[in-house]
Structure formats: C-alpha cells, structure tokens
C-alpha cells in the first residue's frame, strides 16, 4: 500500500507540473496586457513600460515560466495584478473562508443525504421514497443563485431568524475581536472561547452552507438509494435476513457500508470542485472567499492569481483522489491497491 501511495503521489506531481505549464500558457496568450492592468486605466505608455520591466513581462515567455516555477518552489506565487498583493497572502486570507463554508456544506450534505437515501431505499416505492425523490431531485436541480436568494428572502426578510450576508456580524467582529489564528472562524472562536463570535459565525454559515449543500445532498441521497437497493438484492443480505439478523445490523453493517463507496467518491470530488466554484454562493452572501477571488482573477486576466488558485485546487483534487482510492480499499475489501 505504501508503494502504491508513493507512486500515486509521484504521478500527481507530474500532473501538477503539466497543469502549471498549460495554465500559464493559456493565461498568458489571452489578449490582455498585465502591465497595463497593473498600472490602471489611464497609464501612459512609459508607465506601462516601466511596469512591464518591474513585473518581468519583458522577458520571453519560457523565461517567465521558469522564473515563476523557481519562485513557486520557494513558496512565492507572485503578486496579483488586480490586488497588488502577494497571491500567497491573498489565498491565505480567502482560503479559510471558503474551506469553512465548503466543509460545513459537505457535512450538512452528508448528514442529510445519507439518511434520506437510506430511508428511500428501505421504503422503496412508499410515500417516504417519493418524498425523498422529490426532495433530492429538487435540491439537485435548483439553480444555486436562485436558491440563495429565496433562502435570504424567507429566513432573513420574512422570518428574520438568520442573517443576510457576510461571515460574521460586523459589530460582533469589532466588539469581540478574534485573535489571529487559523482563519477558520468557527474553530478559532471555539478555541478562544469567544462565544458571541462563534454564535454569530454559525448563524452566518447557515444559509450559504445550506445553499451549497443542496446539490451534493440530493446527489448523495440518490446514489445511496440506488446502491443500497442493489445491495439489498445480494445473496449475503438475504442470507443475513434468513439468519435473523436485525434490520439495523443488515442496513448499517452490510448494506450501507457497501453502498458508501460510490457516494464517497462523489462527496470527495464535489468537495474539491466546490472550493473553486462557490462563486455564486459567495457573491450572493458576500462571502469573502476563493470563488469570488478566482472569478475576479479570470475576468481581469490576473494570471498570477489564476495560476495560484488553479494550482491549489488541482493539488487538492489530486490529494483527494489518492485519499478516496485508499479509503475505498479500506471500505471494500474487494478493491486491491496495486
């Protein structure tokens, strides 16, 4: 298993190197002048020329790429053309916000999706199953943007029980400030025993997390249901029932465990995907995260930021894929790592 893991990591590094090259080329061949962007809309040719030298854009493309890679090896991801700040610093500021949102969203998706799928499978073709189908199909097909606004309308405007937008209430943030920590507000406030902050963060997380969870929750529910129905037909389940095993033992020990494997893949990949695609959720809920940063980077042809985000998400994808493969082997003894 160790040899397999090491081989996968080595392969992953090759994939990432290829990706940096492709992304760099694509980001640089689009018709845009990063030096002009850097200087702002009214810069003179002289000012733009000076910026071009400063940013190293006067060098041939391969030199720029090699320089970028050398800097990256030292942990320097360059300076954003749009924000004028180091990309690493930008990502460090944005990432915790997005990761926190996506993690909570995924936890919600799992907590709702798995029981919903199990219930639907257990009571196939019953009203429970129909309800489960309606809920999961609806949650998968609702446009994120629309759902986000409807949730705001209902829970903020009409009921007034959940906040509209932001990561934490602005007044709470100023009156109960958090000491610098991991950047994950929930974790930091919990560790520092800052309860008003924790409470406010949790409340602010609800609507965006539910919006984000809708799609994977429905997907997981449908996958669990179909895998479980398949497993229920297996001989070993029938045998278990014939032996008089309890239904919970059969469902959780045998059926669910076998049905989890495909759902796990979906959850892991959706997690990695969500990190870079939370733009709409972040826009509506004014969440200062990476989705918005990535979208801004693309629209302004901010190539160092595009590179930074892409490399980060790709690395995460690769890592998660390896972890999922290993987890599959642990869950399903038939899977051999070789």
């Amino acid at each position, binding site marked *: 298993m160790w040899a397999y893991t090491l081989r996968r990591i080595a392969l992953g590094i090759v994939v990432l190197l290829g990706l940096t090259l492709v992304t760099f080329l694509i980001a640089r061949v689009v018709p845009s002048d990063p030096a002009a962007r850097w200087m702002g809309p*009214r810069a003179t040719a002289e000012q733009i020329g000076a910026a071009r030298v400063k940013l190293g854009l006067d060098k041939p493309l391969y030199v720029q790429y090699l320089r970028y890679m050398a800097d990256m090896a030292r942990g320097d991801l360059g300076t954003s053309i*749009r*924000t004028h700040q180091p990309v690493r610093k930008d990502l460090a500021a944005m990432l915790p916000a997005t990761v926190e949102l996506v993690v909570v969203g995924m936890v919600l998706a799992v907590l709702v999706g798995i*029981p919903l799928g199990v219930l639907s499978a257990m009571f196939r073709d019953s009203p429970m199953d129909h309800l489960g189908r309606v809920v999961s199909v609806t949650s998968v097909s609702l446009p994120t943007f629309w759902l986000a606004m409807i949730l705001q309308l209902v829970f903020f405007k009409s009921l007034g*029980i959940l906040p509209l937008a932001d990561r934490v209430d602005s007044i709470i943030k*100023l009156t109960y400030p958090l000491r610098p920590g991991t950047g994950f507000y929930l974790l930091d406030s919990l560790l520092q025993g800052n309860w008003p902050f924790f409470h406010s963060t949790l*409340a602010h997380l*609800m609507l965006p997390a539910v919006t984000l969870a809708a799609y994977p929750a429905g997907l997981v529910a449908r996958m669990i249901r179909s895998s479980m129905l398949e497993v229920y037909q297996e001989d070993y389940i029938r045998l278990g029932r014939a032996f008089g095993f309890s239904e919970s033992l059969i469902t959780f020990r045998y059926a669910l465990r076998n049905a989890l494997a495909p759902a796990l893949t979906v959850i892991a990949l959706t997690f990695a995907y969500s990190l870079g695609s939370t733009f709409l959720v972040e*826009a509506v809920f*004014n969440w200062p995260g990476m989705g918005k940063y990535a979208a801004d980077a693309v629209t302004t042809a901010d190539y160092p930021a595009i590179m930074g985000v892409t490399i980060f998400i790709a690395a995460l994808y690769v890592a998660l894929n390896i972890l999922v493969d290993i987890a599959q082997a642990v869950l399903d003894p038939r899977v051999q790592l070789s």
Partner: protein
Amino acid sequence: MSLHRRRLAVVLSLALLVLSVAAAGCSQGAANQGTGTGGNSAPSTPQIAFYGATNDTMVFWDPSDSYSNEIIAMNNIYERLLQYDPATNQFTGVLAKEWQTSPDALTWTFTLREGVKFHSGNEMTAEAVKSSIERTMKRGNGAAFIWEAVKSIETDGKYKVIFHLSHPSPLDLVAASGYAAFIFDPTVAQKNGEDWFSKGNEAGTGAYMLESWQQGGDLVLKQFPDYWQGWSGKHFSKVVYKTVPEAATKRQMLEAGQLDFVEMLPFEQVEALKSSPNVTITTTPSFQNLMAFFNTQKKPLDNVKVRQALSYAFPYNVVVNDVMKNYAQQSRGPIPKGLWGHDDHLPQYTYDLDKAKQLLNDAGYPQGGFTLTMTYASGDENERRMAELYKAELAKLGITLELKGMPWEAQWDQGKATKPQDRQDIFVMYWWPDYANPYSFLYSLFHTEDKVLFNLGYYSNPQYDQLIDKANGLAATDRQQAIQLYGQAQELLLQDAPALFMYDQEYVRAMRSNFKGYTDNPAYPNVVFFYNTYRE
C-alpha cells in the same frame, strides 16, 4: 414492514428533524444580534459607519500612486493642502491655512497649519510637504503628472512651502486634487523602505487611521485621537468599508441598516429603494460624461458634414429617459455640468433625422451606404443599450453600424493602433477629470497629439490648441477670462464635431435616512468625508 425497520425509520427521521431544529435553534439567538447592526446597536457599542462599495476598496496603498477606488478611504486617512468645492467654486484650506500666488502665477506660497500631527506621531511641517510632493513626482505613477508644471519646491521656515513653476498653472486646483496630492509622513517610507505603504500601511494626517484590513474583507478605520480639528461634536468612532459586489445583497443590507451609505446601485435597485422609509436617495451631477469619438482621419468621418449628420442622428432623449432612467442629462459640450468651464449657452445637437439626411446629402452620401464600426467597453450595459439604439437610428439613414463590445485594454489598443486604417470609426468612452479642471477634458481628449493617448478622434486644430493652452495659463490668475476662452474652444469643437457628446451622468447615492452630514462633492468622486457625518 418489520418492527425493526419501522424503529430504524423513526430513528433516522428523528435524526434529520433534530438536525434541522438544532440548526435553526442555535442560529436564532445569533441572528438577532446579527441583524440591524447599523441603527439598532446597543448604547455601549461604538458609533460605527458602514460604507458599501461595489469593488475592492484598497488597490493602491501608496498615497503617491493612489489612482483607483481606494480614494474613498484614502481621503479619510490622508489630507491635502486644499479642498475644492465645485458648487461654490471655493477653496478651503486643509493643511494649508493661507496660500497665495505671484501675479505671473509662477510662484505659489502655502502657509501651513501649525500643530498638525501625522498618525506616526511626527509633526506635519513644510519639509514633510515638500518631501511628499517630491516623492509623488519622482515615482511618476498614477496621477503624478498633475504636478508637471512644478520646477522646484522650497521651504521657508517650518511652516511655509514655496512652489516654483515652469509655466503658469492653477496650482490651487492641483493641490486640491483627489489623487496624487496627499501629504504623508515621508520619514516612515525612508525608514521602512519604499514599499512600506504598498504593504498595507499608512502615515496620513486624516481624521481616521487604519485599524485593520483584510484582502477581500473589510477595511476598518478608527478615530485618530490627535486629529487637528478635534473630536468634540458628533462623529463616528469607526468607519467600516465593506465590499458588496452583488447589488441585490447591497440593497437589502442598506434596508436592514447594515450599511449606512451605498455609492452606486443599478437603477432598478434605486427605484425599488424609493419606497423604503429608512432610505434616502440623492442625486448630484457628476463630472463624468459619455462621449463617442469620430475617427476624423478616416473616410467618411473625415468629412465634417458627415460627423455633424451623425451628431443629429443620436436619440439623446430616448437614451437619457429609457437607458439612464433620467439619472443623466444630455451633454452640452465636453465639460460636464457642475464643473467650472461648463457653458450653459453653448448650442446643443438635437435628434433631427431630416437635418442629418440633408447634411449627408451635402456631403455626397444621400443614401448613406457606408459601414462604421463602433467600439465600447464590454460589460457596461448602459453603453450596450445606447449603442443598439444608435444603430437603429443610423440604419434609417442607410448607415450600417457594427457594434464591438471589448475589454478596455483591447479597445484602447485598437484606438492607438499605428495604422489609422486599423483603428475603429467610433470610440465610446467615459471621461472624468483627474482633478477639478476642465483642461483635463479639453486637453486630454482633443488637443493635437504626436502619439495617440486619449485623443481617440485624432482631432487636430491649431486654433483650438492655442485657445485652451492660453486658457490654462490664465486659469491661475484670471479664471473668468479662462472660462471665456474655454467657451470659444468648445464652440469650435461643436462646429467640427470630432465627438458625440451624449450625456453627463448623475451620481445616485442611497443612504440611511438617519445618516447625516453628507454632501456629495463630485471633485472627490464617491468619497464620504466621514469626519463631517454622524448618525441621528
């Protein structure tokens, strides 16, 4: 259904139920704290003002380079020698208490206010002012060119700064500029390195100083205890700049009292807010206008009659009413209403297709029969709608208008193309002055250029050049005479029609009704001088 299965089903359903109830329950208390922050905060909480911006607040941190959205915050952190009020055409001394110019306008002397402190604790002196301006000029970034007339700066004692100019220039307007005129403590940059400011630091004299900032997050300013105007009276203790790009979210935050002031909203959101009792909408003429430059060096637009015909074919009223929802007015020449030099007596082109047809006929194009390309900034919905309407009107004259929405850099690059035939026929662009000087419009956009920069109609008229250059020199000593010359120059422009002057935009601000003390000063676009504001 077996008993086991039923029990399991009950357990799972209960788990789902508990999860949702817990989520709602634990959030309710926090939500009550979270909403209505602005006006309903507890008495013990400090008075905090919230500014809702569409774009990131901080782009440039260096006061010498600042040339972007950050001026909304910079103007509360830093100060200038003078402040200009276009409504009264008056200057107010800020860091300078007195100023005077020599009769030839080549020497300007500013006497500084005493006892003003920088946020670094050092005193603001003549030496600091000299070093600030010299550093800005030396770096040459952003709007540093506004100081181009300055030959040298000298100090006379601790509180007197003397500017020597190479040619007459209205240095009072320059010193009051919203960009590139900030005075800062130069010793901190000398001590901590040239890029100290860019790393997110400041050393101004303004009423508010930096408390915290996070990229993509809030910028928080707090009161500077040693501010020279003091803190008696009603003032906010902190100012928070929030970036809220999504218009609907911004509107709801304003309605809920989570924002005090919003600098810009789409017209439909403004209309929706009008019925909100706690929100006030104000409009002020801005210094920004939309123009379309005709390529005066390319057929058929090299013919003045064709350009005049195209000026008569533009549906001014429809665009102002339907596209701009009346938050604009038809331009009268290139200088927007509200900026000195604007002339209410100038003639205006009106929508008149018959006249346009007659002029085309005179020019030798009775049936139109030519195609023009018009470039505009992609993503600007108002420009796109305006362009579509114009296209329909020109079609009635037999002229095909091809519309090309492009990113600004690409549009500008095409406009500056070396070969005139590679350039567009019509270039649509907004303009706003770097400082409150009509010369910015008349020089940048229409003065003869050896190398194309912003004269994107490639207009060249020596008589016009002479008039505006002379007026700029006079602006320092005899502003009335300057205005008169600018009027003559604008008449020439309207006659030669190198551009279509579409509309002057209005600033539409939405704010909480209890947010008081704000006046819109278009010389400092989108800036709220928070020292003057308070919550009632």
